[in-house]
Every structure is written in C-alpha cells, then in structure tokens.
C-alpha cells in the first residue's frame, strides 16, 4: 500500500474530522481562535476540540464563561476587527440565547453598513436528538437560521464534508453556521489529509436513482441511504440527495433530480412545520420541475412536539428508516 492509498483509506470520526480542520486552521492562520464553553481542558462537551488547547494554549482555545449572548457577540466583534473566531455552542439549543447577536448583528452588519465590513465568523452548533437529553438539549433549529439573509447555513453529514465545509467556512468572509448532528460525532468515514474545501451551497447526490428523489439533511441522509438499499431490490430505485447547505440552497441539483424522477420525499429531523423540508418542497412546487411531478411532495419531519426524554418516545418523534420505507413505497406505488 503506497502513501497515497493509505491517505485515501484513512478513516476519522466526524468529531475527529472537525478537530483536524480546526487544527489545520489554527496552525496556518494566526487570526483563527476557538471560543466556547469548556472547549479547553474539558475538550468540549462532545470532545470535539479535544486536546487542541494543549497545542495552542488558552489564548487561542478560549473557554468562555457561560454567557452565550455575550460570547457570541464577542466573536462578532472579534470577527469585525481582524480575528477569525470559530465559536462553539455547547448545544445548539443554547443559541436561543444568542439569536440577537447572530441575527441582528452578525447576519446584518455588512448589509446595514453598505458593504464596508464583513464578518468572517464560523459558529458550530451540536444539534439534534438521540442522546436522551430531552427537550432543551435536542432541538434542530437550523430552519431559524436558514431564514436569515446574511448567514450561510450548512449541515454536513459525513466526516469528509464536515472537515471540508469547516475549512471552506473559514475562507468565507461571511458568517457560516455549521449544524453538527451529535449522533454523527462518532461516525467514522474517509477523510482526506491536509487542507481541502467542500463547497458551501452545493448538494451531493449520494446515490443515483430514477424512480424517486429523497432530499435529506444531516443524520437523515444516512437513514435515507439505508432505506434506499432496502428499496432497490423491491424495484424502487431511489436517488438520495444530501442537501448539505440550507442557505443558500442548491436549487439546481434538487430540481434536476425531481425532473428525472417525478417524485420527491424530503426527510429532515427538525419539526415538520416550517422546517427545512417546507422550503425544499416549496422550491420544487414553484419551479418548472412542478410539471414533472407525478405525485404530491411528501415531507417526513419531526413530530409537532418537543423532544421527549424516554428513548422510545424520542425515536418515535423523528423520522426513522421504516417511516422512509413506508413513505417511499406509498409514493412509488401511487398510493399518495
């Protein structure tokens, strides 16, 4: 096995991939700093920053007090004046405390100032359910930020992508919000070494198919792929698109797929109503792809309730593989 092959085979977990991206950024650009609660010696609530503080010191891997609004605002101010902060929310739920700085300041200041400044800020949001942490630690709020012009919002679903998108975010002069599903942190996958970027704003076709398009986000991409594997032998050939970016959405990739298959299911974990799938559906329904639709557009989103604690309830309120299978079969067989 030569060096290159070894590189190509290298597997890292999603958390390790993020850490590697941050390591590369810290090493190559003095202006990069990490900020967040317990990201130093603790290594982050999900051990994403790990031991980076040992390598870069507490000046560059900064534990903040438990002050989400202020901490986010400090990151905005620092980004406006020469630094490139990567700000970690301990759980994306706590971003509810910092919406002011994210939305009223970071997202708008460039526009409000007529383009005279930019905010090269990266924020990381550990998101989603599945850890038994209940309603205040399990939300998927990417739709809120996806609704805000001035932000870019991504949801990488693989170790390779999260590294590449984090590095792309750091090269982006505008604020980029990265939603990381907590259940993905331990997922392993191929991750190229060194510096590379994965484009923000481009969806990925994870599986080509001709009968039915599934557009999924984050963890749901993997559930959609699992469903597609089952459906293939049943004669339902599913195209699975990993949306990857919520804002700006990759219209063309989605529409092209729908024009081909004529059937669409959107799968996302956030609450169904006004969640990401609403936009995907509406984007298709208002496009020329509408004419290619052979059936209604199905959405599988989170149930209309907070995330419950009990593990069985917790599973029941977000889409699972059997839900996708049911929806796909119904759709393919014209029962919808």
């Amino acid at each position, binding site marked *: 096995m030569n060096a290159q092959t070894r590189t190509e085979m290298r597997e890292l977990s999603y958390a390790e991939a993020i850490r590697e991206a941050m390591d590369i950024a810290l090493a190559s650009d003095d202006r990069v700093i990490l900020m967040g609660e317990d990201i130093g010696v603790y*290594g982050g609530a999900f051990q994403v920053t790990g031991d980076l503080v040992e390598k870069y010191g507490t000046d560059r891997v900064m534990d903040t007090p438990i002050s989400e609004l202020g901490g986010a605002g400090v990151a905005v101010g620092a980004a406006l004046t020469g630094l490139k902060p990567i700000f970690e929310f301990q759980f994306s739920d706590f971003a509810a405390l910092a919406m002011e700085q994210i939305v009223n300041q970071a997202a708008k200041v460039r526009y409000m100032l007529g383009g005279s400044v930019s905010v090269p800020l990266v924020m990381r949001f550990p998101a989603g359910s599945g850890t038994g942490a209940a309603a205040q630690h399990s939300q998927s709020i990417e739709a809120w930020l996806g609704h805000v012009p001035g932000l870019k919002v991504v949801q990488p679903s693989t170790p390779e992508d999260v590294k590449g998108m984090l590095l792309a975010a750091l090269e982006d002069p505008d604020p980029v919000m990265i939603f990381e599903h907590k259940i993905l942190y331990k997922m392993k996958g191929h991750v190229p070494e060194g510096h590379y970027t994965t484009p923000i704003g481009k969806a990925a076709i994870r599986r080509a198919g001709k009968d039915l398009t599934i557009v999924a986000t984050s963890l749901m991409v993997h559930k959609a792929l699992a469903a597609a594997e089952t459906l293939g032998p049943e004669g339902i050939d599913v195209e699975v698109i990993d949306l990857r970016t919520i804002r700006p959405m990759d219209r063309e990739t989605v529409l092209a797929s729908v024009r081909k298959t004529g059937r669409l299911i959107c799968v996302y974990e956030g609450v169904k109503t006004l969640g990401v799938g609403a936009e995907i559906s509406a984007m298709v329904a208002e496009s020329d792809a509408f004419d290619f639709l052979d059936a209604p557009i199905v959405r599988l989103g989170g149930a209309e309730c907070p995330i419950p604690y009990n593990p069985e309830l917790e599973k029941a309120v977000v889409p699972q593989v059997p839900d996708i299978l049911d929806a796909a079969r119904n759709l393919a067989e014209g029962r919808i």
Partner: protein
Amino acid sequence: MADAATDTNTPYAIRTYSPQRLKDALHKMFLIRKFEEGAEDSYTRGLIHGTMHLSIGQEASAVGSCMSLSDEDKITSTHRGHGHCVAKDADLGKMFAEFFGKETGYCKGRGGSMHIADPSRGNLGANGIVGGGLPIAVGAALSAKRLGTGAVTVCFFGDGANNEGAFHESLNMAAVWKLPVVFVCENNRYGMSTSTARSTAVKQIAERAAAYSMPGVTVDGNDFSAVTEAVDAAVARARRGEGPSLVENMTYRWRGHSKSDRNRYRTKEEIAEWMERDPIVAMSKLLVDHKILTEAEVGALEEDAARIIREAIDFAAASPDPKIEEATRDVYTEGAAA
C-alpha cells in the same frame, strides 16, 4: 454542652428547629445521597438513557435552603436538581420513575432528570438551561406579591449561571420591584470545567448583590446550620416585603459534572479535601453532639433512606413505559379554547 438550646454558641439550626425537623433534615440529606448513588448505579447498569448531574456533596445546601419553606412557597431548580426536589418533599418513586423515563414519573417520562418538577409542592422544576430558572423565579415572586399569597420563592442556581445575562436581569428586576425571592447560589467552584477564577470577575458571587442593592452573604454551604441561618433570614426578609437577597453557599460536587467528565480541571487532592468536609457527616455530628440523635439513630436514618431509595427504584423499574402513540400528548392543553 449541658443546655444547648440556651447556649449563645449553639448553632442557629439547633436553636431554631425542633429535634424532629432536624432529624427529618438529616434524613432528607441521606435520601439525596442515596438517590444520587442509586442514580449512578442505575446509569452504570444501563438503565438510564441520557446523562445526569449528581449533587453528592451538596446536600446541606439543598436541604438547608428549604427549611423555612412550606408547600405554598416555590423553588426553581437547575440541571443539578435532584437534591432540591428531595428537599422540597418530592416523592422518590416518582422521581426515579421519571429518571427511568416511565409513565409513572413526575413528567410521565417526557422530561427526565433535567426537568423533574412537583408543582404540588411548589417545585417549579429543574431546568436544562443554565440560568433559565432565574427569571421564572422572579415571575413566581411577582405572582405571590400581586396575588398576595405571602409565598416566597427560593431560586437555586450555580456559580456558572451567575455569568448569564439572565442572572443580571433577574436580580435587577427582583430588586426594583422588591419581590419576595431569595437567590441561592450553589457555588461549587466550577461551571463544568471552568473555575470561578477563570469565569467570574469577582471573588465571591455574593459581592454582586451590591450591584442590585440587595443583601449578599457567603456561607459554608456544607454547614447545614450556616445555610439555614442565612437563607431563613433572607426568606423572612422577603416575607416581610423587604425584597430579595442573595445567599452564596460554598460547596463542592464530588462527582464529575456529568457522565462525560474526565475531571481534568481539578486535582484528586482537591476532591479528597472536600470529601473530608462531607456535609452529611458534619450534620450527623451536629445532631449527635447536641444529643438530638445517637450514632445508632443516625445509622438507622441512613438505612431507612437506603430502603426508601431501593423501593423507589423498584417502583420505577416495575412501572410502565409511556405509550408511543401518546408521544405528542400534552404539547397543548386538551380541550383548550382554540
């Protein structure tokens, strides 16, 4: 110590509370300890799905701060809330059932450890959001004042929470409106891994009371009597309509922050030192010294607590899970107007 009750050196709690209430208090402290140990054990045995925040080492603060409260009085609690629940007379079976995610739990299995509440006892609930309970406590105090119930609210929060904006806004409003609320900071020296020295620009959090023109006092939070003395005075002040106070109980959590903690931010020596200052040992000694209990009676109390916890765990384990088809129940009030 011939006549403790009249001795001016007699600790406040001994002077103030009946032997029965003091025994009950020690019993509650044992209940908390055993609850937490039972929780930990259940976790290790895989019976628990999420995480948990144990308050072992902080029992005097929880129980002492609730001594002068009735069921009409309210508390708001934190992510580290099991002790506060027990102190406010929660049913241990329902607590464990909640912890196990069962339909018989306080939250019918929907809330889990971080959301246990018992409104019937005035416990408005633990809170998963650091600082989340502070303004809610002020709101409860506003209700009490406006409705003239005479109730006081005790608002528990941690040293880490004191750096949240919600702390500032809450203490300010409580003071401006002279509301009957007592802010009890359980300063266990760390918010997760971050020591107060690295997070908080003041030596003692009680010093911040001055910024709201309210009394602030720091006490040994592992000394049941000291906690009681400080909080009782603050509660009495609140009941007299003189407004809020801040009490800072210096204490320590023996365990890691939660199950994901590698304990890298503190030394074994520090932990050992604080374990020497076990609030339950101190309280037991206090009651024995003042002849309220014998050593044997202390042992019996502990054993009784252990039994109650075992029964609570058994109840929880035998309880039914919630029904999947009821996952979205109680989002809204059934039969509501709209």
